[in-house]
């Protein structure tokens, strides 16, 4: 069975081009350390780790919305150009 330290080492070695992934790994590492030091209870730790996933989901939805906004700008720009032509 793997140890907490092994998981911590894995998290510390996470290197991704996506800053959200690196940030998430850093947060899990930080919260695990705080929990081991007794500064966070187990319940608090679980809740904070769930938040990391929730934040990743929110970011994913907002990236989707940002893309829709870009498409909207393109659609309206093309319509305007077509109207002038």
């Amino acid at each position, binding site marked *: 069975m793997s140890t907490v330290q092994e998981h911590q080492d894995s998290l510390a070695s996470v290197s991704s081009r996506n800053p959200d992934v690196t940030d998430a790994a850093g947060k899990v590492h930080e919260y695990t350390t705080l929990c081991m030091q007794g500064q966070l209870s187990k319940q608090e730790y679980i809740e904070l780790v769930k*938040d990391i996933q*929730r934040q990743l*989901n929110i970011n994913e939805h907002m990236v989707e919305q940002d893309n829709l906004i870009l498409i909207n700008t393109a659609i309206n720009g093309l319509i305007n150009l077509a109207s002038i032509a």
Partner: protein
Amino acid sequence: MKKLILLSIIMLTGCATVNEAVDAFLMKYDNNEYKLITEIRTRASYGKDNCAYVEDSKKLAKELEYKSLFLKNYAEKLPHNKPVQESSVELHDMVKGLSDMYDKGSVSPIFCKIKFTSIEESATRIQQSEGNKPR
């Protein structure tokens, strides 16, 4: 002509479905939604700096729980608004996690600070995208 342009956009941008292209075409900035998310962000920002005052923090968590539920319900029936609808569910879950922890009793100052900071960050991310929506 508009239909032709819309079809071209679908093909060029790789929209997975026609619905996505329609959402992109019809999405609109909503003043109330923007105001609500700004309120949540601002109160969370205030909360993270006041974790030493437990009763005040608990009251703020309850207030945020109501506000985030209000945002979730408000966004839910607005058409062409799927990303905010889904994000507001996640945000409400985050806030409820804080509020529930206060109901259970003990909340450590560090948990309070991290929680309010996470809520603030998420609200800021939603606000950033929301502000760019077409008027």
